[in-house]
């Protein structure tokens, strides 16, 4: 099992959380701390960049739901980028793609926010 790393990059009103390694229920601390830092910095839109994602189980998908709920409550727009075909399929299967905007890469996601 590889550890989850979440790196925050901020540009204007958009923050990017670069998520790498394995995302499981054990990733909650890293993921939520990254989200909290982005919101504290004033981000109104957050791109979850999954280019470095190596593994995700159902616990990891569950975390994305709680993250999404938190974002909706806080009026923060959530986008995803860098998903492989496999993880795109999983987001479609779980119907998370109905609530998280998916873009091919970080650049396209940031452009979609229009900041």
């Amino acid at each position, binding site marked *: 099992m590889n550890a989850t790393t979440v790196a925050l990059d901020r540009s204007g009103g958009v923050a990017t959380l670069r998520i790498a390694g394995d995302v499981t229920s054990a990733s909650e601390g890293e993921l939520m701390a990254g989200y909290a830092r982005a919101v504290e910095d004033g981000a109104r839109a957050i791109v979850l960049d999954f280019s470095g994602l190596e593994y995700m189980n159902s616990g990891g998908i569950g975390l994305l*739901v709680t993250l999404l*709920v938190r974002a909706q409550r806080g009026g923060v727009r959530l986008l995803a980028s860098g998903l492989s075909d496999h993880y795109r399929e999983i987001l479609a*299967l779980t*119907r998370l793609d109905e609530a998280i905007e998916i873009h091919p890469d970080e650049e396209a996601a940031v452009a979609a926010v229009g900041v």
Partner: protein
Amino acid sequence: MTMTEKTPPQAPASRDGDHWAKPVDRLSAEGVAGAKLDSVTGKRVTGPLQGFGQLWQKTLRVPLEGSSMSPQEVIAVWKEQFATFWPKAGRFYAPLAGIVPGEVALMDLTPAPGSPIKLSTGIMVLYADDESFTFTTPEGHALSAWITFSAHRDGDVTVAQVQALERTSDPFVELAYMLGANRMNDRFWRDTLVNVGRAVGATDPTVVIDVVCVDKRRQWRHASNVRKSAMIRSVGHALAAPVRWIAGRN
């Protein structure tokens, strides 16, 4: 000159690739034996985002004190004998292929103690590996949920766990949840965990429950889920039983 066919570079296969169900538009319960009513075939899967009611995360754990089984062994037993661990309030018709990703199971549930009507519904196995498996509910199910059954090591003890991320699917079920069905649901999984504990040799399995309301808001845009309610379909099936009986005699 020999032409060599160039193979496009393939993305490396994900380590979790075999653990997830393949994308499916509509579910099929073909091949599930025993259930009287199939309320699942033709339905889409749902999840916590498509439900109506408040979003709950329920985590029930039982330390398997006295059992020598590893988490992998516990999960193997749980998958193999899943139906037998259910309390009497429910009956689970397992897929013939077993608890593997993409398989559909049917179930009959008693919505309230003593109820003559059985709620016929089902699940799809969304994810399964050696230490966990996850069910997702179809449209019409009372809950829009993912339920994960897992086992892990805590020191020298294996711990079995049920974690549900769930919303009720429609306003009627939400009302029922507020009137006690929520606690009934907790008891159902607690009794299941006790049964698992006993089956794997735990002495006096005691379940710890942690319930968090992740989202207090109700999603009114999904109130129309009631149109697909398996409960309404089950009640209709029960009410039509005399008609079917008379038709069968003629």
